[in-house]
């Protein structure tokens, strides 16, 4: 081995110990059966994977995809104009970027709990609206799919803003001028020139938001109140209260397989040569 390949050695060691090995264990568990006391036991079988196709679980998977997809779409709509604003700001660029990253300075758990204080029936929003007389009974803001969506968008928005900002920042400003010069009004310039040329950033941001949203369990647990079960919660439940590690493993592997296939198809379609 030459010197350069040693540079990767620490990362390889880390990945082997903390990714490859656990993954192998999960994969192996997924073919075993649940023991009477919650452990795992033989025989090896495909039973866990057959259970995945139960309509109950398929519905959870579908719901997870819809919620993650909606969160990604909302993030994109919010993040693109914001990133465009930051990239085209003539000053205070670094300040705006700091503000985008500001939420990371506080624990995700604390921030999610903060949403509960805002949204619950006796929370800030309901109390304020009642105090000024706009409503008389509290709005059901918490413990529904909307609250989960809100929490996911809030949590992952920076992951959409930053990659889009990075591609916008690299965009040659003379292309925007050329569009205006050729007669394109600002809206037309955004849709015909800026948006298509920012696609790599949009794709990267969408992946960075969609995948963690798909596996999220903390947000649906706290803001959904257990009523909006997503696939992340399903996995969590199998490993904790249900004590069915083999099925939990099968759900994890199944989710990973679906995500991998989706990503592969998506990236193959999107990665046609551009410049």
């Amino acid at each position, binding site marked *: 081995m030459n010197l350069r390949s040693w540079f990767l050695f620490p990362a390889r060691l880390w990945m082997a110990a903390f990714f490859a090995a656990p993954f192998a264990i999960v994969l192996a568990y997924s073919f075993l059966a649940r023991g009477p006391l919650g452990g795992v036991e033989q025989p090896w079988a495909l039973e866990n994977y057959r259970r995945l196709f139960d309509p109950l679980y398929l519905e959870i998977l579908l719901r997870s995809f819809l919620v993650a997809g909606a969160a990604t779409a909302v993030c994109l709509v919010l993040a693109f104009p914001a990133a465009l604003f930051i990239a085209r700001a003539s000053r205070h660029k670094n300040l705006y970027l700091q503000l985008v990253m500001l939420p990371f300075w506080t624990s995700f758990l604390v921030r999610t709990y903060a949403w509960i204080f805002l949204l619950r029936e006796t929370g800030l929003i309901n109390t304020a609206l009642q105090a000024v007389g706009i409503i008389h009974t509290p709005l059901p803001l918490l413990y529904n799919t909307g609250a989960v969506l809100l929490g996911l968008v809030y949590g992952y928005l920076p992951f959409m803003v930053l990659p889009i900002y990075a591609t916008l920042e690299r965009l040659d400003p003379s292309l925007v001028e050329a569009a205006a*010069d050729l007669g*394109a009004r600002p809206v037309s310039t955004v849709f015909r020139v800026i948006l298509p040329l920012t696609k790599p950033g949009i794709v990267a941001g969408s992946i960075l938001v969609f995948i963690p949203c798909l596996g999220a369990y903390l947000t649906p647990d706290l803001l959904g109140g257990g009523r909006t079960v997503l696939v992340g919660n399903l996995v969590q439940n199998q490993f904790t209260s249900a004590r069915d590690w083999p099925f939990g493993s099968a759900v994890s592997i199944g989710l990973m397989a679906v995500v991998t296939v989706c990503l592969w198809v998506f990236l193959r379609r999107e990665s046609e040569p551009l*410049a």
Partner: protein
Amino acid sequence: MGPILELRKLVKHFPGQRAVADISLSIPRGSFFSLVGPSGCGKTTTLRLIAGFEEPTSGDVLLNGEIVNRRKPYERNVSTVFQSYALFPHLSARENIEFGLKRHGAPDIGRRVNQALELVNLTGKESRRPAQLSGGERQRVALARSLVLQPDVLLLDEPLAALDPKLRKQMRLELKAMQRRVGITFLLVTHDQEEALSMSDQLAVMNEGKVEQVGSPEDVYLRPRSRFVAGFLGAVNWIGGIGVRPEAMTVARSPGGERSRQSPGVITGSTFLGDCVQVQVRLSGGEDIVVQVSRASAGFAAGDAVHIGWDPGDEMSFA
């Protein structure tokens, strides 16, 4: 009909910098006009004020007799060929050329794009993306993209700077020929005096945000109004406050001949340039000058005593 483009007392300040300081110009309809000057002289800012990318601090830009100061770039009938060409990398050559026509909702787009492709000799390459085209081809797409809109004025910002030297000389002729063919007013910005001299009907020499002189290439080269213009457009030998161009001088081994101004000197060296030879001479007055002579009349060696001659008509003097 008046001039197609007029600048009246145009001024543009940037924070801490006066990029354009009071420029007045009148660009004749259908002409090839150049703004030439060293970098930082304000020529590109002037072009951007005309295109509408910047708003003037004071003064007016008149297009076809109308003040267009506050009009956005997409509301002015001028078009720019950018130094970097600024072709849309996600669109093919054809789609790049169509872009402006579609934004204007023009009729008959297909035919007009075909004509433009033919004009710039790119038929057959219309489906290629900019990355799949050579530098020269990219420039022709940029030209076609602007010309297809039939702008009142085509603005060219150092259009040849990105090409290699051989192609650059060829493109000078092509650009000039194209301007004659389409009859559109071309306004070229360049720092290359040879480019400006060889292509323009008229040129404006700029320095420090101001126009030093406007005229035909012959006019400004042969009758410069300032030391700056004389020195910027070509080499000048300064002899006692009087300027003479190297190609207007002769070198002889003995005094006499038909030149009425003479000065003895000593050869200090010579440089072979291929098509001619540059001879360096130290005059008896102590000035170091350069004389450009033909290959045939060369053959001087360092240390040779010579006599330099020129005509009073070739002298340039400034107050």
